C-alpha cells in the first residue's frame, strides 16, 4: 500500500500537463469515455468496519487509456489490509468499454467486458452482484486468499445527459469461469455540477469544480435464484472536486440498505490524467 501511494506521489510531481476525470461515481459507469491518447491513473480506496469482523482498507490502482474516442481500456491492481490480519495483493482486472453508437442520443449505450483474476480476499467492492454480502468477506485473509476467482463480467451501460444532469444505469452480469452460475447486479446514479456555466476567472473553489451525485447499487441474485432475496444494496451520496493542478478528489460515504450489507462504507478516490500520453511530437 505504501509503495502504491509513493508511486502516485511521484507521478504527481512529474509536472506533466494533467487534468482528471469529472464523474463522481465509484461503482456506476456513465457513457463518458477516456479521451483518445489520455492516460488516467487513479487510486480508489474503500474502508469499512464490518459488524463482527475486522475493519479493512482496500486499494485499487486504476490505469485507464483512451485507445480511440469509442474504445477505452483499463487495468486494475487490487490489494487490501485487514486490521489484525495481513496486507495482501488480491489480483488484477482488465476491462474494455465500447461505444457502439457514434452519435449522442437520449440514452447512450456502452458495452463493457472485463476479465478478472482475483482471490477470495478481494474487498474492493467494485460492484455488487449475486448474493454478495458482508458475511462473504468476514473470513480471515489466511483462508479466503486460497480461493482463486477467474471471472468474466459484462455490463450494459446506459447513460444520458440532460440540462447538466447525468443519469446512468448499469446492468451487470458476471460469470465465475469455474462452472458457477451467472450472477446479476445493478447500479444507477445521478449527478450534476454545482454550477453549469464556468466562471470567467481561474479559481480553486468555484462551484463548477464540484460535482454532486447519488449512487444506488446492489445484487440481483443468480441465474437460479434471481431476485432481491439474500442480496445486499447500498445508497451512496458522492462528491467530486476537480482541483487545480489536474487532480480530482472524490469521496463517498455509502450506506447499506439491508442486513446483508455493510452498515457503512467509506470510499475515496484520487485521480490524475496525463494528457496525450506518448503523443508529444509535432503534427
Amino acid at each position, binding site marked *: 500500500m505504501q509503495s502504491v501511494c509513493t508511486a502516485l506521489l511521484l507521478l504527481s510531481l512529474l509536472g506533466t500537463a494533467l487534468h482528471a476525470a469529472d464523474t463522481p461515481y465509484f461503482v456506476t459507469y456513465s457513457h*463518458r469515455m477516456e*479521451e483518445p491518447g489520455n492516460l488516467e491513473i487513479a487510486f480508489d480506496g474503500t474502508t469499512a468496519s464490518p459488524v463482527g469482523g475486522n475493519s479493512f482498507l482496500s486499494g485499487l490502482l486504476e490505469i485507464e487509456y483512451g485507445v480511440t474516442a469509442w474504445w477505452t481500456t483499463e487495468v486494475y491492481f487490487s490489494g487490501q489490509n485487514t486490521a489484525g490480519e495481513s496486507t495482501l495483493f488480491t489480483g488484477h482486472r482488465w476491462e474494455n468499454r465500447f461505444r457502439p453508437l457514434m452519435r*449522442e442520443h437520449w440514452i447512450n449505450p456502452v458495452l463493457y467486458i472485463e476479465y478478472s483474476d482475483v482471490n477470495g480476499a478481494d474487498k474492493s467492492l467494485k460492484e455488487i452482484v449475486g448474493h454478495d454480502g458482508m458475511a462473504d468477506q468476514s473470513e480471515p485473509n489466511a483462508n479466503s486468499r486460497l480461493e482463486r476467482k477467474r471471472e468474466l463480467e459484462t455490463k450494459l451501460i446506459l447513460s444520458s*445527459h440532460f440540462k447538466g444532469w447525468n443519469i446512468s444505469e448499469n446492468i451487470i452480469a458476471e460469470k465465475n469461469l469455474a462452472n458457477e452460475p451467472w450472477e446479476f447486479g445493478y447500479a444507477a446514479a445521478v449527478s450534476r455540477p454545482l454550477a453549469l456555466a464556468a466562471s470567467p476567472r481561474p479559481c480553486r473553489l468555484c462551484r463548477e469544480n464540484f460535482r454532486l451525485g447519488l449512487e444506488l447499487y446492489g445484487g440481483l441474485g443468480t441465474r437460479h435464484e434471481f431476485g432481491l432475496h439474500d442480496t445486499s444494496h447500498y445508497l451512496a451520496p458522492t462528491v467530486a472536486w476537480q482541483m487545480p493542478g489536474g487532480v480530482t478528489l472524490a469521496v463517498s460515504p455509502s450506506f447499506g440498505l439491508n442486513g446483508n450489507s455493510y452498515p457503512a462504507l467509506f470510499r475515496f478516490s484520487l485521480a490524475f490524467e496525463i494528457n496525450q500520453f506518448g503523443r508529444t511530437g509535432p503534427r
Partner: protein
Amino acid sequence: MKLVAASLLCLCGALVCATPRTSEWRDKVPQEARLRANPYAEEPSAAQAGEKLFARYCSPCHRASRTGKWRAPDLRSPVVRNTPPGELFWILRNGMLRQGMPSWSHLPEEQRWQIITWLQTR
C-alpha cells in the same frame, strides 16, 4: 471455454461494427442544430470562461495556440470562425468518434457555448 470464445467473438463484433469510416462532418449536422444561436455570443465574460475551459479540455489536442496536433485540426482557420455556432455546438456534443474527436456531452451546455464564444471571438 465456449464462454470465453463467445465473449471474444462479441468483442471482435463490437470492434468491426465500430470500425472508423471517414466522411464530411458538416453534411451530418441537422438543419435545426445548425440554426441554434449562441446564448453567450459577444459576451466578454463568456469568452474569458471559454478560454479557461479551452485550456483545460481542448488544448491537450488542439494546443493552447489552437494550431492543432496529430489529427486535431487547426482551430484558427476562418472555417471555424465563420461556421454557424450551432454546427460547432453539434460537433462538441456528438464528437466525431471515428475521426478521434471525443464527445463533450458531459460538459454542461453552458460551458460548451462558452468555449464556442471564445473560439469565435478570437
